[in-house]
């Protein structure tokens, strides 16, 4: 059969083959398979599937692990007692690589939300889940669970590996020492919350470069610039900014000029929560 020039034997579509089927059964909508339904758990499962079926997810997470572990080993291997770093907190010293790891996780968070707008995937996602908000919550939950689990494990391994070098220095410490385990968990929590902030920014701005720029400019650089201002109040306020709060969460001993871990956790949670709430509000209202 030709496709470009139909033979005159098929004279137009009317009456067409269907016009003669008034006995057509009523729309199948009458009986959709009852077991097919959108539920929050299923949306979670979908988001988990999306995360692990992309190469970029693996690259960003593995990079974050390598950064933290690699820098930790270098710090441990090159440390000498009585050097310039003697007054640095052991956990902070061991997990210096978190700053680099954080960038990878920020990119992952932004890719999970803004990346869907860049590729058009968001139209598929929101057609499947037109209630929209479950998609954002599922993304945040999948991201938080994955990043916390992976980064807490990485922190534990990095700490143990670094201690292999540090055990005979003044930075010798054990997991059971006061504050150590809490600081390792705090470090992973901080990375998770910073990542959630980035994920929210990505959903809000709907652009990967835009969100990365906003994160670097607004979250990482802005507090540094504000810190130069000669006002006591500004300096005090900056302690509650994301990077400063994150730093306070990941130290076994109090760092001078920072808030204590409790308020730091609250502050960082508020930053991430507010960004996600703003993202939810726009997701609900704006056209896709």
């Amino acid at each position, binding site marked *: *059969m030709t*496709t*470009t*020039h*139909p033979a*005159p034997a*098929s*004279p*137009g*579509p*009317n*009456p*067409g*083959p*269907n*016009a003669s*089927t008034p006995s*057509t*059964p*009523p*729309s*199948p*909508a009458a009986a*959709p*398979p009852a*077991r*097919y*339904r*959108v*539920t929050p758990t*299923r*949306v979670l*499962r*979908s*988001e988990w*599937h*999306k995360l692990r*079926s*992309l*190469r*970029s997810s693996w690259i960003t997470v593995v990079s974050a692990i390598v950064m933290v572990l690699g820098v930790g080993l270098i710090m441990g291997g090159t440390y000498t007692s009585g050097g310039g770093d003697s007054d640095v907190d052991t956990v902070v010293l061991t997990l210096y690589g978190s700053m680099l790891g954080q960038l990878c996780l920020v990119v992952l968070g932004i890719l999970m939300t803004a*990346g*869907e707008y860049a*590729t*058009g*995937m*968001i*139209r*598929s*996602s*929101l*057609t*499947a*889940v*037109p*209630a929209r908000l479950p998609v954002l919550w599922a993304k945040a939950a999948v991201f938080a669970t994955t990043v916390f689990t992976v980064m807490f494990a990485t922190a534990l391994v990095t700490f143990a590996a670094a201690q292999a070098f540090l055990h005979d220095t003044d930075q010798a410490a054990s997991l059971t020492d006061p504050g150590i385990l809490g600081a390792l968990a705090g470090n992973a929590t901080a990375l998770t919350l910073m990542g959630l902030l980035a994920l929210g920014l990505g959903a809000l701005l709907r652009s990967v470069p835009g969100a990365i720029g906003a994160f670097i400019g607004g979250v990482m650089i802005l507090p540094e610039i504000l810190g130069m201002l000669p006002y006591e109040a500004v300096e005090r306020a900056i302690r509650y900014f994301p990077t400063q709060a994150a730093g306070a969460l990941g130290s076994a001993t109090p760092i001078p000029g920072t808030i204590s871990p409790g308020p730091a956790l609250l502050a960082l949670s508020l930053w991430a929560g507010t960004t996600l709430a703003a993202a939810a509000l726009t997701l609900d*209202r704006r*056209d*896709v």
Partner: protein
Amino acid sequence: MIKAHGLTKRYAGRTVVQDLDFTVRPGTVTGFLGPNGAGKSTTMRMLLGLDAPTRGRSTVHGRSYAAHPAPLTQVGALLEARSVHPGRSAFHHLMALAHTHGIPRRRVEEVIDLAGLTAAAHRRVKGFSLGMGQRLGIAAALLGDPATVILDEPVNGLDPEGVLWIRTLLTSLAAEGRTVLVSSHLMSEMALTADHLIVIGRGRLLADTTVAELIRSAGGASVKVVTPQPDGLSAHLTGPGVTVTATGAPATDAPVHELRIRGVDAAYIGRVAATHAITLHELTPQTVSLEQAFMDLTQESVDHRPQQKPPPPPGPSPLTGAAA
């Protein structure tokens, strides 16, 4: 069954879709036609809840799309723009969508086979051709075995085999009692698949009709005559239902005129001309093709067009049967 009530969409002061009212019924293929930029895609996005209408509302099977507990079983949609992450394989893309509804892996494999993507299912979408991308979109649309299928320009980028596949698919979906809404800017394509037509231009409803009715309303057949004696010929062709329209002079030096005559056939005009010794330079039966009917209908509403109306296509259209 899809219903639109006064559907209106305004973007930054520009009205893209205005007061659309239509019903798409199950069991037939409904063509959604309009020139590029007429508002077809916007309308479809509003049907799926991706864009919120400025005014009006639309329902699918009696409810707004978003109100269905299992939307993918109600409407399967292929949108014009690609809606797939290029880094994911076809299988994982479909599986991620299937998970939201608890649709099993078996069904995902079924639609992959149905769309002819079996060999490419585990390749990343990045390397897909336009046609394979469309096939993936169709597979996604059929995932939930939906009662209604909405396809935006499904034949775009498909090879002849793919085009034929879509036509057959649409017809069989409709024969199964489903509601099928297919948009296109190509009347000829719609004529082959659609039973019913919804035509829009500049966001307004221009026609909600059948293919045959559209041709009838476009004026049916006419005869093109080129003669140096237009007045003489017209004088002898008066009669009920006969119209003679001067359509201008051809670009030659000879003082001739081009006429468009409706209501009588070429043989009759030839006899009249011979009887009255009127010289004819050309006597050509013209059939209104669906394409022409569509252009006549939408020419007021296209955004960009050449200043002069393009001449009607010379050859007989494949739809002459329907026009006669």
